[in-house]
């Protein structure tokens, strides 16, 4: 066994850190998109709009039932061949859209479960004061469901950060892509991938701390 090249590793840290904004940026963009899409699908799954319900179920089933990597390849390398409109799409955009679709399918199920978990009497109370179904959902049910779903959704965000590393397979130079290039030049694969692994780890731990604070805030209404 040879000794680790610590100087190389230390020098690599700032290089990879330079790509953290792109990694976080992709994850944030995909998370925002996935939250909106997932909430819409979750509400639809609870209300059950005829015909649309079938499409939503199919969507969720497909994106949960196939690997993210396959979805990304299908989307980036495959789709432009039959839909020329997509030919100009860049890797970052493709990765964000792919992550959005993939994670929205999972998140829709968590949000749906959280909505169904809200006590029936909350619906009745909202109806009894004359609120419409939309008002009840937006003002009373969804905020309570959000509190229940928050820990799970935060976990998906953490998962999302890690999954952005797959964007390097679409030619995107993010944290993983940059590391790969560096390693290919130095042949110090172990050092390079160890550094990127630790950096992902640190990011995730920092997010976990944030997650705990968010949950405390959301639990305010339940505090005695």
């Amino acid at each position, binding site marked *: 066994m040879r000794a680790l090249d610590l100087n190389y590793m230390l020098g690599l840290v700032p290089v990879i850190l330079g790509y953290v904004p792109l990694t976080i940026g992709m994850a944030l963009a995909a998370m925002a998109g996935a939250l909106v899409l997932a909430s819409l699908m979750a509400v639809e799954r609870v209300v059950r709009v005829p015909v649309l319900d079938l499409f939503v179920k199919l969507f969720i089933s497909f994106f949960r039932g196939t690997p993210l990597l396959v979805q990304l390849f299908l989307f980036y390398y495959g789709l432009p061949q039959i839909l020329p409109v997509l030919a100009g799409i860049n890797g970052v955009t493709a990765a964000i859209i792919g992550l959005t679709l993939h994670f929205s399918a999972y998140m829709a199920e968590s949000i749906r479960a959280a909505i169904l978990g809200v*006590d029936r*009497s*909350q619906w*009745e*109370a*909202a*109806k*009894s*004061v*004359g*609120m*419409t179904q939309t*008002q009840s959902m937006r*003002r*009373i049910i969804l*905020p*309570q469901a959000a*509190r229940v779903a928050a820990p799970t959704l935060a976990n998906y965000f953490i998962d999302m950060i890690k999954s952005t590393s797959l964007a390097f397979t679409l030619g995107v130079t993010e944290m993983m892509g940059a590391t790969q290039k560096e390693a290919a030049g130095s042949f110090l694969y172990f050092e390079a991938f160890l550094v990127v692994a630790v950096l992902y780890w640190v990011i995730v731990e920092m997010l976990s701390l944030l997650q705990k604070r968010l949950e405390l805030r959301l639990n*305010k*209404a*339940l*505090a*005695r």
Partner: protein
Amino acid sequence: MISILGLTKRYGTNTVLDAIDLEIAAGERVAVIGPSGTGKSTLLHCLNYLDRPDSGVIRIGDLTVDAATARPADILALRRRTAFVFQNYALFANKTARENITEALITVQRKPRDEADLRADAILREIGLSDKAEAYPAALSGGQQQRIGIGRAMALDASLMLFDEPTSSLDPQWVGEVLDLMRRVAERRQTMVIVTHEMQFAREIADRVIFMDGGRIVEQGPPAQLFDAPRDKRTESFLRRVR
């Protein structure tokens, strides 16, 4: 003036409300009593369309809602003329005490926030919970929650207030404060229908008491007559059991 014609509700083959006819004058306070599972709560839920009746007509002032033809807009209009106090309080868990009262004023009645807040503060004073304005329901006792529940209903200025066993979920120590508040609401000649097991309370504040059994109105009359000289055997035996 409120009239109910042929109100019927079935669950499967079980007829829970069997063609109820009922007229309630403006300002009248009606108490509904009877054994458990005889449709008292269902009657109230149907009056608010929280349960949709299978047939029957509800008329409140110039609004007529027929179960055969009722569209969502009719149901909303009916709910905006009625207020409901729940057995389990059913306060909005994600809203403070004050927000529970202002919520419908802002989202349903489209009142400006400051006007709604003023109204809520007046109501909070009236129900003696000004100091709990910012508290969330989970931090309140059962009695306090139910008083907010009544306050939320009061804020709606509804033609008809419906009380569904408002003290049945309460620990005995909180029953008194809730009944006191209801007494004060009744003193204003607010039209109300109260489903209750508190016989003494019903006798004291009701203009009319209705005894229900098997999804029907068996007997009704002024409290003194119904409690002291019931005409029907079922009323008599029920009253004997609860005394």
